């Protein structure tokens, strides 16, 4: 089980690397936000796997916090993108 969960974490890390390529390429700010939002969701998934691997309740709270930060951050920057051209 432990090995399987470690493989899961490596896979999610690989996905995050793909997303970072998109964040690097852009072309628009919106694309970068979407990519970074998904990086945080991948991190949350990896933390859930970590919680199962170690059995520590700390990671349960961490998953929720990371998912929440991803959501709040995305909304915030999307709002900024909409208003950036308004003087």
């Amino acid at each position, binding site marked *: *089980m432990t090995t399987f969960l470690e493989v*899961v974490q490596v896979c999610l890390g690989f996905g995050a690397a793909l997303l970072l390529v998109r964040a690097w390429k852009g072309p628009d700010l919106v694309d970068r936000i979407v990519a970074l*939002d998904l990086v945080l969701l991948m991190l949350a998934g990896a933390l*859930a*796997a970590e*919680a*199962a691997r170690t059995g520590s309740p700390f990671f349960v709270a961490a998953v*929720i916090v990371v998912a*929440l930060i991803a959501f709040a951050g995305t909304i915030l920057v999307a709002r900024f993108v909409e208003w950036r051209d308004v003087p």
Partner: protein
Amino acid sequence: MSPAETLGAVVISTGVVLSLIAAWGLLSFPTALARMHAAGKPASLGLVLTGFGAGLAAESVPLTVLGAVLAFFMFLTAPISAHMLGRAAYQAGQAPNLHHDDLAGVTLPADVAPRPGERSISGWHLIPLVIIWVVLWRDAGIGVWVGGLLAGLLVELIRRTGRPNGTFRPGAMLVFLVRYSGMIVASNARVAWEVITPGSQIREAIVAVPLRSDSLRVALLVANAITHTPGTLTVELTEDPLVVYVHLLHFKSVESARSDVARLEDLVCHALNEPVPV
């Protein structure tokens, strides 16, 4: 390995595959709005499945509850962020090659004024809710406080959107939720297929769909459900009259898009006990 562990491993694997498909779709889809289809659907379901699967695999109750919390959270937030980003992308001119565009030339109001009778989120409601939460957990750790704050905000948000006499039909709600879950699975399968077979039939368009109901909560749930259905994404919602602007990944015709949304609206009206428009 116990049966629960095996099941958990299968569920986690599905979640990870969906997450990877979302990542690959984000890399390979041609336009910003198409990429949002890849991001909004498989990534959130992938995280939910990973959380659930981890709970099953560890045979731990708190982790399984976490999966349920994540599912509810993603159900609420994934369409919101997809909608906000879709709107921002459209306004930034990141939507080329549209086969049909009803949003062109529409001037949108800068901000929506609160409706009469709409209540704001008040701290006086929030504080007791948080305290009740902490007392029920019988633990005053930082995580419990944060959780209580989130749960309280959620209750306040629901109270704010619902009318004072807002009701729903449990049976019809169940029908809606079952159909809705089916839609989520179908939409994920479709986006996943689109990612795996590149260069296929993407025909993007934005279609304006006037809603026949005048209830704000129907509009909210319809807009949410559109984002979860196969190949569609809510980009904009205007009030007076209520019109949703839907971005389609596989555009066939304006009529077929409108009749799809009308079917969804009927389901939602039944579930929320609102008069079904004719």
